[in-house]
């Protein structure tokens, strides 16, 4: 076969490269190079929406004399980041044998506050207390990342007002509801000088002076004066900025993201291996579809969809006598089993 293998320069032969420029408990900034934009974007999407975490999903309000409506408070509770360390040992609610929820698929939190003083009282995420059995001692605890260790403000109470409720936190992913998002934000950037012209920058008189340079502009060679546009160029260096919401560490978000992507692939490979022999080739086989034998698809030239009489297998076997012999690619003999 006359085929020109894809051009591979030396750098590409090395494979993907990761370079970290900043990493702490809140964010990790890294550069992924020698990778394709398709893969980089898959990684971004999976980190954004498909990493399992834990969030409050059910709220039973026993007493609420605050000024906020029950459902308003329930929504606020759902958005509070909970520590998701060890969430992999928690079951999804739908996979659990229990009726509703149990300690294998949920974490129970309670909140009880009454304003007994003369001044308004603030109720913080700190006041949400995990109760009952848990998979481990940190899973489901509200994230308290501020200096005072209070966590987000849930509501305020006037003297005499009371709030008493019980929450069920469940495992989930951000594709279902954004409250399960592990990342506060993911920065994704490439081509800081816009050499590829993927961006059409709006400007008054000169885009160079009106648009501030990216923080990665110094990392890449600026375009030369009068440089011709390289229409073969593809993005190659991707700058990620993964910011955690506190429920998972930024490093964990990246590792988990890749893991989720791999699990997705493993599931499909497994299914392909399982069903490759029967339903894939049987039920949905092209030649058995009603429209295939009509000649309407342009192949024509034969009367039965299964080729010559006696040739029971629609997958060939008799070589050139099958309908496949007439395909534009065919030399007649198909080389596949």
């Amino acid at each position, binding site marked *: 076969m006359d085929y020109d293998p*894809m051009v591979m320069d030396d750098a590409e032969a090395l494979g993907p490269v990761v370079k970290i420029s900043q990493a702490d408990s809140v964010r990790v900034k890294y550069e992924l190079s020698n990778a394709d934009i398709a893969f980089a974007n898959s990684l971004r*999407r999976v980190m954004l929406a498909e990493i399992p975490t834990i969030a409050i999903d059910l709220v039973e309000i026993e007493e609420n004399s605050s000024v906020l409506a029950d459902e308003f408070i329930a929504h606020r509770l759902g958005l509070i980041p909970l520590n998701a360390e060890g969430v992999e040992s928690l079951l999804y609610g739908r996979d659990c044998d229990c009726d509703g929820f149990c300690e294998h698929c949920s974490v129970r939190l309670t909140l009880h506050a009454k304003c007994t003083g003369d001044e308004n009282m603030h109720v913080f995420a700190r006041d949400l207390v995990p109760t009952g059995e848990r998979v481990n001692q940190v899973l489901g605890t509200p994230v308290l990342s501020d200096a005072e260790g209070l966590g987000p403000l849930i509501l305020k109470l006037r003297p005499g007002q009371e709030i008493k409720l019980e929450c069920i936190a469940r495992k989930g992913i951000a594709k279902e509801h954004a409250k399960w998002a592990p990342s506060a934000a993911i920065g994704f950037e490439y081509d800081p000088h816009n050499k590829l012209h993927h961006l059409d920058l709006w400007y008054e008189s000169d885009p160079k002076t009106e648009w501030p340079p990216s923080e990665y502009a110094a990392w890449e060679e600026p375009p030369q004066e009068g440089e011709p546009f390289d229409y073969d160029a593809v993005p190659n260096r991707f700058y990620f900025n993964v910011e955690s919401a506190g429920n998972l560490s930024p490093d964990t978000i990246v590792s988990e993201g890749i893991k989720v992507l791999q699990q*997705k692939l493993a599931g499909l490979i497994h299914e*392909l291996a399982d069903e490759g022999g029967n339903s894939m080739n049987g039920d949905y*086989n*092209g030649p*058995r579809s009603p429209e295939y034998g009509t000649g309407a698809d342009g192949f024509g030239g034969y009367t039965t969809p299964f080729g010559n009489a006696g040739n029971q297998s629609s997958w060939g076997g008799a070589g050139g006598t099958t309908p496949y012999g007439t395909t534009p690619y065919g030399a007649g003999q198909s080389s596949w089993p």
Partner: protein
Amino acid sequence: MSRARSKKEESAEIESDIAMEEAPTSHQPEDEMSVDQNEDEDAGDVEDDEDEEEEEEEGQRVRLLPGSTPTAASFEFLNEGHTLGNALRYIIMRNPDVEFCAYAIPHPSEAKMNVRIQTFECTTAIQALEKGLRDLQELCDVVSEKFIDARQKFAENSS
């Protein structure tokens, strides 16, 4: 929960317009459970056929679309999107035995993703798909490894 129940019962006695049945089944007091279960079982018998059909549909997440030939096939993936589609398209296209590969999401409100693969005679579309999935898995392994290495080096340098 017992605490919650007694509170509710009290309030129900006082204000008869609050219906206990409105609470979700999971929050109903346990003594009602036996009744609930019976109802569930009865309902289950009737819906058995429907359930089986649904399971079959959910069980198979990838299928070959009609009109496919061994070297030119379209696959339909359920519950997949651009996350898998674009990366898979890229990695399959890198395979020198593949003549053409593209993906599409025919309609945004259907959770379906289609992949078209056309190969040269030396392989089949199904083999190319499987190779693509494995290659992508390998790529993930490499990137994961590189990230962990880079993170360790960064921690060593900064300390």
